[in-house]
C-alpha cells in the first residue's frame, strides 16, 4: 500500500474509533436543553467517585461537590447574621437547662423527592446510624454525648445526652461551612446491607432542591426539582436557577488556577473555588461584571473558619522547648506577609480562631487585650529571637544556622500544595533568615508526617470555633496529646499537655459561650496558648470567590448579606446560595 494512503486510512480509523468509544462511554444521554441564562456554571475540582450521592458512603460522598444541593439539615446557620435558619426542623431547643436534653420539631411539609414525608423516623435513623456505625464521621460525637434518641411522634424527636452538651446542637446538628450532618431517608437506607458502601446513584430520594441528572468525569449536572417541599412550606421562593453545572477543573499541574481565572473572565464560569488575592484582583480588573464578597475592594473575600497556624510538634526536640517555639514566632513578620502575599489586606493573625462576631467580641474583651499587650503574640523581633535561641543552648554555625550538638533545627514545613504554595515558601525563608534550617514539603506524605509526629512543623488550619473559642482551645487539651510514635488525630498535631490548661478547659465545657465565667476562663486559656506558643498563628483564612453577575445576581456579599450565609457554594449552606440567586435578565 502507498504510504500516503496508509496514513490517511489509519487517521480515518483512529478518528472513527475515538468518536465511537467516546460516545460509548459517555453513554448516549439526552437531556432537555436549558438556556445559558437559566444555567449556573460552577468551577470545582471534583474528586468523588461518579455516582456516589449517599451521605453515608465512606470514601465518596462529600457535600462539597454539589451533593449539598441534594441533602438538607435540620437547620442552617447564617454566619454573617449570626443567626440560625430553621430548615427541616421548625425548631430545635434544649429542653433541660443543663443542656442534657434536646427536642426537635420537624416541618410538617418536609418531604423526600419521591413524595414520602420526612418524619422523626428518618431523624432517629440518622442519629442511631451515627451512634452505632463507627465509619460515619460524627460517630465519636454521638458516642460521647448521646444517651438515647426517641421519636415522640411523627414530627417530634427528643435526644437525651449523657452529659451536658451545650455545643452539640450547633456543632453537629446545624449545617454551616463544612460541618454538621444532613438527614438521610430511613426508608431507603434501612434496606441497604452496608450503608458505607451504598453509592446512592442519581435517583436516590433526597430532600434538597436539585436532582442529579448527569455525572461524568467532566461535570455533574443538576436540574431543579420544581416540586421542592421548601417552596410549598414557605421557607423560600422558587429558585430561578433551572440547572446547575458543576464543571471539573481537575487537579491541574501546579493547580494552574490561571486557566480557571481566565474562564471566569470569559463568563464561562459563574463562580469557582476561591482564588489567590493577586488573581482575584486581576479577574475584577478584566471583567467588570465579576464581583466578590467585599465588592471590588481588598481583601476581595470573606473570613473562612479555618485560620492557619504553623503547628508545632511540642514533644519533638528541639520544638519541645517553648523558647524555640517562641523564637520562631518572633521571626515571622506578619506585616510583610500581608504586604507581599495579600496585597496589603490584614490577613495575618495571632488567634487560632476566626474573628466572627462572637469571637471578635471575645478577642476585643478587656481581659484578652490585656494579655495581648503583655505577651505580644504578634511581635516580629529577630534580635529577641536570637536571644531566646542562645538561651536554649544554640549557637550560630558557619552557614548562619542555629546549631546544638551538631544539629540544626531541621524545620521542614509540611503543607498542602494547592492551598499553601504561596505562604509556605515565604515562611520558610523568614525562618531561614533567622537561622532556622527550614524547607518545604508539599508531598502527599504531608498529612502522614503530621499524624505520625515525624516532622516538627505543619501548616494547617483550625477548623473549630465559630461562635465561642471553646472548640479551638479544646484542640490542645491533654486528652488528645498522643505520645511520639503513636498517631495524633486530625487537628491534634500539637501533642500539647498541660494540667493547668486542662483544668480551665474542663471547667469551661458545660458552660454556655456567653457565661461570664466562661469568658474569663477562655481568656486565661488563650493566655497560656500565647505564653507557651502552643502553635504559631499565621493567617486568617479567606475565601476570595469570584461572583460573575453576567447571568446571576443576588450573591451574598457585605452589601447584600441575603440569609447571612457565606458565599461558598461548596459549603453546606451553598444550597441556600444557589437557591436565592436571581437571573440577571
Amino acid at each position, binding site marked *: 500500500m502507498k504510504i500516503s494512503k496508509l496514513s490517511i486510512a489509519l487517521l480515518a480509523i483512529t478518528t472513527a474509533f475515538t468518536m465511537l468509544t467516546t460516545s460509548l462511554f459517555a453513554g448516549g444521554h439526552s437531556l432537555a436543553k436549558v438556556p445559558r441564562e437559566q444555567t449556573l456554571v460552577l468551577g470545582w475540582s471534583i474528586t468523588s467517585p461518579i455516582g456516589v450521592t449517599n451521605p453515608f458512603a465512606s470514601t465518596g460522598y462529600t457535600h462539597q461537590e454539589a451533593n449539598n444541593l441534594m441533602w438538607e439539615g435540620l437547620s442552617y446557620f447564617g454566619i454573617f447574621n449570626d443567626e440560625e435558619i430553621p430548615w427541616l426542623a421548625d425548631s430545635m431547643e434544649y429542653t433541660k437547662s443543663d443542656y442534657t436534653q434536646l427536642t426537635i420539631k420537624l416541618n410538617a411539609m418536609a418531604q423526600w423527592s419521591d413524595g414520602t414525608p420526612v418524619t422523626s423516623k428518618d431523624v432517629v435513623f440518622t442519629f442511631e446510624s451515627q451512634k452505632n456505625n463507627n*465509619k460515619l464521621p460524627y460517630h465519636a460525637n454521638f458516642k460521647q454525648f448521646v444517651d438515647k434518641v426517641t421519636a415522640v411522634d411523627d414530627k417530634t424527636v427528643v435526644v437525651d445526652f449523657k452529659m451536658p452538651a451545650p455545643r452539640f446542637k450547633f456543632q453537629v446538628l446545624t449545617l454551616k461551612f463544612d460541618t454538621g450532618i444532613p438527614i438521610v431517608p430511613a426508608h431507603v437506607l434501612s434496606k441497604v446491607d452496608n450503608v458505607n458502601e451504598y*453509592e446512592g446513584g442519581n435517583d436516590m430520594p433526597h430532600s434538597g432542591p436539585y436532582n442529579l441528572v448527569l455525572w461524568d468525569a467532566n461535570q455533574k449536572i443538576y436540574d431543579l426539582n420544581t416540586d421542592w417541599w421548601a417552596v410549598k412550606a414557605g421557607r423560600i421562593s422558587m429558585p430561578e436557577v433551572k440547572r446547575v453545572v458543576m464543571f471539573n*477543573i481537575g487537579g491541574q499541574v501546579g493547580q494552574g488556577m490561571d486557566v480557571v481565572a481566565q474562564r471566569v473572565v470569559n463568563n464561562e464560569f459563574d463562580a469557582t473555588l476561591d482564588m489567590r488575592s493577586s488573581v482575584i484582583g486581576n479577574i475584577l480588573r478584566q471583567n467588570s461584571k465579576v464581583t466578590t464578597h467585599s465588592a471590588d475592594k481588598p481583601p476581595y473575600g470573606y473570613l473562612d473558619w479555618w485560620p492557619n497556624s504553623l503547628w508545632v510538634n511540642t514533644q519533638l526536640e528541639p520544638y519541645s522547648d517553648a523558647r524555640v517555639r517562641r523564637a520562631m514566632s518572633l521571626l515571622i513578620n506578619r506585616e510583610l506577609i500581608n504586604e507581599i502575599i495579600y496585597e496589603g489586606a490584614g490577613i495575618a493573625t495571632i488567634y487560632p480562631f476566626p474573628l466572627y462576631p462572637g469571637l471578635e467580641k471575645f478577642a476585643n474583651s478587656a481581659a484578652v487585650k490585656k494579655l495581648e499587650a503583655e505577651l505580644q503574640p504578634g511581635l516580629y523581633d529577630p534580635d529577641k529571637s536570637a536571644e531566646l535561641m542562645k538561651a536554649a543552648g544554640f549557637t550560630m554555625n558557619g552557614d548562619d544556622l542555629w546549631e546544638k550538638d551538631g544539629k540544626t533545627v531541621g524545620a521542614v514545613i509540611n503543607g498542602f500544595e494547592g492551598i499553601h504554595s504561596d505562604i509556605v515558601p515565604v515562611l520558610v525563608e523568614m525562618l531561614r533568615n533567622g537561622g532556622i534550617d527550614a524547607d518545604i514539603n508539599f508531598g502527599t*506524605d504531608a498529612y*502522614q508526617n503530621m499524624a505520625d509526629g515525624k516532622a516538627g512543623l505543619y501548616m494547617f488550619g483550625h*477548623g473549630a470555633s465559630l461562635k465561642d473559642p471553646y472548640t479551638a482551645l479544646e484542640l490542645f487539651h491533654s486528652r488528645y496529646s498522643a505520645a511520639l510514635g503513636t498517631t495524633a488525630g486530625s487537628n491534634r498535631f500539637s501533642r500539647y499537655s498541660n494540667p493547668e490548661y486542662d483544668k480551665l478547659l474542663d471547667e469551661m465545657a458545660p458552660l454556655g459561650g456567653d457565661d461570664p465565667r466562661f469568658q474569663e476562663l477562655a481568656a486565661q486559656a488563650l493566655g497560656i496558648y500565647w505564653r507557651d506558643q502552643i502553635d504559631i498563628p499565621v493567617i486568617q483564612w479567606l475565601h476570595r470567590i469570584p461572583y460573575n453577575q453576567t447571568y446571576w445576581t443576588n450573591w451574598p456579599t457585605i452589601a447584600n448579606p441575603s440569609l447571612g450565609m457565606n458565599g461558598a457554594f461548596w459549603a453546606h449552606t451553598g444550597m441556600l446560595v444557589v437557591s436565592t440567586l436571581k437571573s440577571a435578565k
Partner: protein
Amino acid sequence: MFVIKRLLFVLLVVWSASTITFFIPRISDINPIRERFAELARLGGFSAGELEKIVESYSKAFGLDKPLMQQYFDYIGGVMTLDFGVSLNKFPKTVLMLIAESLPWTIGLILVTTILSFVIGNLVGALAAWPLSPKWVRGVSTSFILFQGVPPVLLAILLIFFVAFKLNILPIAGAYSIGTVPDFTFEFLLDVARHQILPGIALIFGSLGTWVLSMRGMGITIQGEDYVIFAEHKGLSSYTIFKDYYLRNALLPQVTALALALGNVITSAIVVETIFGLPGLGFVLITAIRSNDFLVIYGIVLFITIAVAVLMALVELLYPLLDPRVRQGQE
C-alpha cells in the same frame, strides 16, 4: 514458537513492572488510606477522634494488614487477570473501570497525534536527508530536529497562554464545552475535536524532532543502498525513487520504533492532558498521585506497560508482513 516466546516475554515485562511498582511505594511508610481520610477531614465533615479506627477497618478491607509477601502474591495474581484492585479514592470503583472510562480520551489523543507526528516527522526527516531536495528545504527540515529540545509540557503552557488566553480562538481546557451532554451528534464531535486541537499540537510538535532525527539518519543510510542506486540508474523519476524506493525502505525500520516511542508519547500525554484538563489516563494518574490512590497509580502504570509491551510484540510479529526481506530471512 516465536509467538509463544514473545508472549512469555510480555509476561515477564509485566511481572517485573508490577514487582517494581509494588515494592517501591513500600520504601516509604505512607498509609494512603489515612491520607485520603485526612483529606476528607481537612475539607471538614469529620470529627477527628475515630479517624484511626476508620483507617484501620479500611486497611483490613483492602488487605493492607496482611503480610507483605501475601499482599505481593495477591497483587501479582490480580495483575495477571487484569484485576488491579479498587480505587481508594473512588471506592467502590475498580481501577479497571477508571481506566476504561478514561482510556478512550487518551487513545484518541495519542493515536491521532502519534500518527500525525510520525507521518510529518518522517516526511520532514526524509526530505532533510534526500540529496535532491533543494538546499533550503533540507535546511528547514533539518532544523525541525530542534523540536526535540522543546518539551510538550512547555508547548502546552505557552499555547494556552497565547492561543487560548490572548487570541481566545480555541477552548482553554476541558474535553468538551461546559454543560454539553455527550452524545453521538456531529456538533458534539466537532466540539470534542476543537478541544483536542491545542493538546494535539503540543504533543505533535513535542515528538516531531525524534522522528525527523531518526528518519534523517535512516534516509542517509538508505541512499547508499544498491537498490536506490539501481533505481537511479534505471532512470526512474526522482519522485518515484523518493516515494517507492527511498521513503518506503527507510520507513520500515521506523515502524519498529513506533511501539517503543509510545512509552514517551504516553509520558508527554499524561502531563499535557493534565494541563488541558482532558479526562484521560494521565489526568486520572496525576489525580491519583496527588491523593495517594496507590492502586490506581500501579494499575495505570502497569496498564501502560502492558500496552507498550504488547504493541512491541505485535509490531515484531507483524513486521515481516511489511518487510519482505525479513519475511524471507525468517523462514
